[in-house]
Structures are given as structure tokens and as C-alpha cells.
């Protein structure tokens, strides 16, 4: 399996996607999302917050897997590192708006430290190495030596922050709007990164590492940096989810989370930025939906939905949207 050449054509999707996702469309999307804070209540608002948190993590994983061609089955681990960093920092009375970037930075260091030695591994071997991370981390979090920080099996409770400056919002509403703001910032960062020279270097390495190297691209630097940045995104997503759940424990970050994240990337569209939103919706809602369809065989329904989606849209939701969009453009011309 040659995962080093994931999707050579995905690069073109970026340019087309950006024509579809115009500034106007994005603004409309943000306004709709923000107004949700005043219509939705309780559990729905919580779900929406989680979707945004997952979306950030998916953008991160897509930077690594979709744009740089490095597969990761271990991003749940960086999600967990972000969540735990936030929980531990907030227990030390660090304010949440400082703890979230700190969580991202800690995850970034962890990602770089893992990505550097993993440079030698490709495709399947990298998949195994990253998968190891997602298996190992929950065990480490439970380990008794780290218990003073991690709280062991019991985990850590976090208190949701109230809205600052006396703004009349409930803490649920504020948490959602704050997550939305961070999501918007992270998407802008990701888009600028993808469109920059660095982004081109990342894609060049994905499409043909040797050719990229001979053009003077330092693939070791770019690959391990991408690993770090990608982990930072996952960490920020994880810290926001911890804030929404108000609790972290080792069992929330099993290897299934890592697998779900990879599935989310595929469903949204490998090598697309906006696909992350659709992937996050899938991660959040399909398991619940499956449970409603059949209690006994919920995961069979999940698997079936996943396979049907891949059959219907082999390049993910964004792949389909881009195709429809370019068709309608062609018709108008």
C-alpha cells in the first residue's frame, strides 16, 4: 500500500474549493453558525460545540495525511494531550484563553518530537507507529506514576468559564461562541498555510518526495514540522472538547477516537479544507444515528453507512461538491 502518494489529484481540489468557498459564502456560514447559539439549547449546543472541536482536529489530520501524505492512526493521542494539558493547566488556575494556546503548543512539541524519528517510516509502518501512540497514551494516562497530574482512571473535572465583562450569555452559549471563534481562526491559519510556499512544499513532498527534494525542499524539516502543526490543531480541538465536556478521563481517548478521526477525514474529503466540517458531523452524529436504527447491531449500521458513503463519494463530500460545482460552472459558461 503506497500511502505516500495518497491522492495526486487532490491538489487541484484546493483551488476549485476556494472558488466555491468564497468570502461571502464563508461569512454566511459563520453568521448562521453564530446564530445557532441563540436558537439551540442544552444538548444540541453541546453537540455543535463538539462538531467544531472535531473539525479543528480533522483539519490538522488532513494537513498531515491529505496535504503531506503521512498517514496517522494516532491523532486521538494528540487530541488527548491537548485535552489533558488544558485540564491540568486550568487546575493550576491558568485562565482558559491562555490554556488553549498552551495546549496547542504542548501538542505541537509532542507532535514534532514524534514526527522527527518517525521520518524514516512510511505508509503502513508509519500507520503502525502512530497507532501505537493511540494505544499507549490511555495506558500512560492511567499509570500510577503520573496520577498526581492526570488523576489516574478518575480523570479531571473542569469548570466551564462564564462569559467575561458581564455579557449576558450562559456559559454554554459562551463556550460555543468561543469555540466558533477559535475554529474560524484555525481555519484561516490552515488556509493560509496551504496556500503559502510551505503548503506547496508539503504537497510536493506528498506527490513525489524525491523530486521535491531534488528541487531543494528539505523534506525532513517540512515533514516533521507538518507533524507538529497537525498535532497542534488536534491539541486545540482536544482542549476545546474538554472545555465542552467539562471532564477528561483516559477512556474518552481510546484508539477508536483515532480511527474515527481518520474516517472523518475520508468522509469529508482527503486533501480538502472544508471537508473537515462534514467529517466532524459524521463523527458526531452517525454513531448516535446508528444506535437509533438498531440497538443490537449499531456498529454494523455505522460500518454500512461508512461503506455506502465511500461508494457514493470516493473522494469525500468535498469531492462531490467540487464536481457538482465545476459542472454547474461549465454549464453557465
Amino acid at each position: 500500500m503506497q500511502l505516500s502518494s495518497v491522492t495526486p489529484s487532490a491538489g487541484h481540489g484546493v483551488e476549485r474549493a476556494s472558488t466555491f468557498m468564497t468570502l461571502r459564502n464563508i461569512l454566511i456560514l459563520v453568521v448562521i453558525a453564530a446564530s445557532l447559539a441563540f436558537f439551540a439549547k442544552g444538548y444540541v449546543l453541546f453537540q455543535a460545540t463538539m462538531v467544531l472541536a472535531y473539525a479543528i482536529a480533522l483539519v490538522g489530520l488532513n494537513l498531515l495525511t491529505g496535504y503531506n501524505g503521512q498517514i496517522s492512526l494516532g491523532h486521538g493521542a494528540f487530541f488527548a494531550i491537548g485535552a489533558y494539558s488544558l485540564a491540568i493547566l486550568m487546575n493550576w488556575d491558568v485562565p482558559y484563553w491562555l490554556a488553549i494556546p498552551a495546549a496547542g503548543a504542548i501538542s505541537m512539541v509532542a507532535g514534532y518530537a514524534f514526527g522527527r524519528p518517525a521520518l524514516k517510516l512510511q505508509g503502513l509502518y508509519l500507520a503502525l507507529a502512530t497507532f501505537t501512540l493511540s494505544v499507549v497514551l490511555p495506558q500512560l494516562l492511567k499509570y500510577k506514576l503520573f496520577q498526581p497530574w492526570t488523576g489516574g482512571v478518575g480523570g479531571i473535572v473542569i469548570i466551564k468559564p462564564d462569559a467575561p465583562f458581564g455579557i449576558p450569555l450562559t456559559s454554554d452559549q459562551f463556550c460555543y461562541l468561543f469555540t466558533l471563534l477559535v475554529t474560524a481562526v484555525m481555519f484561516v491559519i490552515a488556509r493560509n498555510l496551504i496556500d503559502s510556499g510551505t503548503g506547496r512544499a508539503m504537497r510536493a513532498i506528498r506527490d513525489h518526495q524525491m523530486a521535491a527534494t531534488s528541487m531543494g525542499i528539505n523534506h525532513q524539516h517540512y515533514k516533521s514540522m507538518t507533524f507538529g502543526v497537525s498535532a497542534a490543531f488536534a491539541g486545540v480541538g482536544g482542549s476545546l472538547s474538554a472545555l465542552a465536556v467539562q471532564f477528561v478521563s483516559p477512556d474518552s481517548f481510546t484508539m477508536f477516537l483515532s480511527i474515527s478521526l481518520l474516517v472523518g477525514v475520508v468522509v469529508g474529503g482527503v486533501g480538502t479544507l472544508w471537508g473537515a466540517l462534514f467529517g466532524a458531523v459524521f463523527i458526531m452524529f452517525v454513531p448516535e444515528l446508528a444506535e437509533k436504527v438498531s440497538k443490537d447491531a449499531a456498529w454494523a449500521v455505522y460500518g454500512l453507512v461508512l461503506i455506502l458513503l465511500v461508494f457514493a463519494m470516493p473522494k469525500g463530500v468535498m469531492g462531490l461538491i467540487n464536481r457538482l460545482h465545476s459542472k454547474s460552472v461549465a454549464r453557465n459558461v
Partner: protein
Amino acid sequence: METLIQQVAVGLASGGIYACLALALVMIYQATHHVNFAQGEMAMFSTFVAWTLIQAGLGYWAAFFITVIGSFIASAAIEFAIIRPLHKAPELSVVAVFIGLLVIFHSVAGWVFGTELREFPSPFSKDAWFGGSLMSPHQVGTIFVALCIVAALFAFFRHTTLGLTMRAAAQNPGSSRLLGIRVGRMLMLGWGLAGAIGAVAGMMVAPVVFLDPGMMTGVLIYAFAGALIGGIDNPVGAIVGGFLVGVLENLLGTYVVGTDLKLTVALVLIVGVLIVRPAGLLGRRTVQRV
């Protein structure tokens, strides 16, 4: 010293199981260039089918052969119906389909056969001559079966035209097609063989770990590690890797860390080995043509 020998023996016994499944993984990689994450669950499902047949009153060997042939056909059918239509889809989409298959088999097995632990009979009688104080007859038998399969596979891939054709179809589908090889048919055959080997592995594992829908999850991780540590393109490597992982896991669990971190340390060590030898211990480094 005595505990050391004992632990090595226990490690070799579980290593035989890992080796069996690692072989199935290597097999499907040789024949299709995919690693099927659902392999373990498919093996578990096959074992449940064998169990049902035995419960229905069939003899062990009748059930054994019916299951192996049935798994061959079912796996080939899965290739034909689900994997083949996706031959143009991105690589990761195929991975997602494997994950989908995994959860489907897992969930359906729990639904149809129930989630309680069941006993599965061993084909080797308890007081056979090859048993000893260190290993039970079943454990020795499992290792023997694994070695037999690898010998047969080695001969098949190395010395038969069909084996050569299958390897060619997996490595370079385009050129193979130009030479008149029916690539699709070869891939289907590869899936079928992998399913059959998986079924044998499942039936060898089940008497040891007991039969339940989750029995393969841990085993698959170790088997995957074994296959990679030996080199994913090498059946002999899979056997060596499987045994190595089994022994390492046991020794580390006994002497270095407790059972809490056994999996952790074993996996970290495996990744360490891979960083030093990125293609596995016995794997070949592929040279890329520019």
C-alpha cells in the same frame, strides 16, 4: 532460570498465534498490496461459523474444512463486491472501507452469536505425545501448523506459475495486464487465500483465548506488529516476527514492567526496531525508480 525458560515457552506459544495471523496479513499484502484491518474480525467470524457447525453435530475436521472453504469463498466475494469497485478510489478510502468491514463483522458476530465467552475444541488431544511440561499439545500443534502453512506458501509463491502471477498482479497491475494476466481474478484469489488462512488462525487461537467477538482485537495488533517487524513482504519474516513479538511481550511483562504497561512497552520497542530498520528485519528495501 527456570522461570525464564517457562516465560520463553509461553511467549513462543502465543507467538505461534501471532505468527499465524501475521502470515494471513503478509499473504494478502503479497497478493493485493493492501493490509486488511478487518482480517482479525473476519477470522473471528469464521471461527464462530465453525463453532456453530460443531454445535450442530459435525465432527471437528468436517467443520474445519467446511469453514476454511467457506471463508475462501466469502473473502473472494467481499473482494469482488466491495473492494474491486473501488480500485480507482483514493488509497485512504479503501482503508475506511476496511474499518467499516471491521466494525460490521464485530457487531454482527455479537448480535448473531452473543457476546459471552465460549469454549472451542482443540484438534490436538490433551495427552498427545508432543506435549510437555512447558507447552501443551495444542501450543506445540499451533506452532507446527503455522510452520506448515508458511512452508506451503513459500513453495507456492516461489515455485508455481500461479504464485508468480499473483505476485506480479499485485506489484504491477498495469504491466501484468499487458502480459495477459487477469489481474482482478488474481486479487480475488489472494483475498480468498487470506480469508482461508485467517480462518485457520482463528480456529487455532480460539481454544486458547476463548471464543468471543473481541477475541481478535489484541491478537491483531500483535500480529500486525509481527508482520511489520519481520518485513511485510516476507512470509518467513512474518513467522519470525510473530514469535519475536510473543516472546518479547512475555519477557518484558515478567521482568521489566508489570502487566499494566506490557502492551505499551512491547509496541514502543517494535517502533524502535522499525526506526533502526525501516523495512523490518527480513524485509527488502524497495528502490524507487524516478
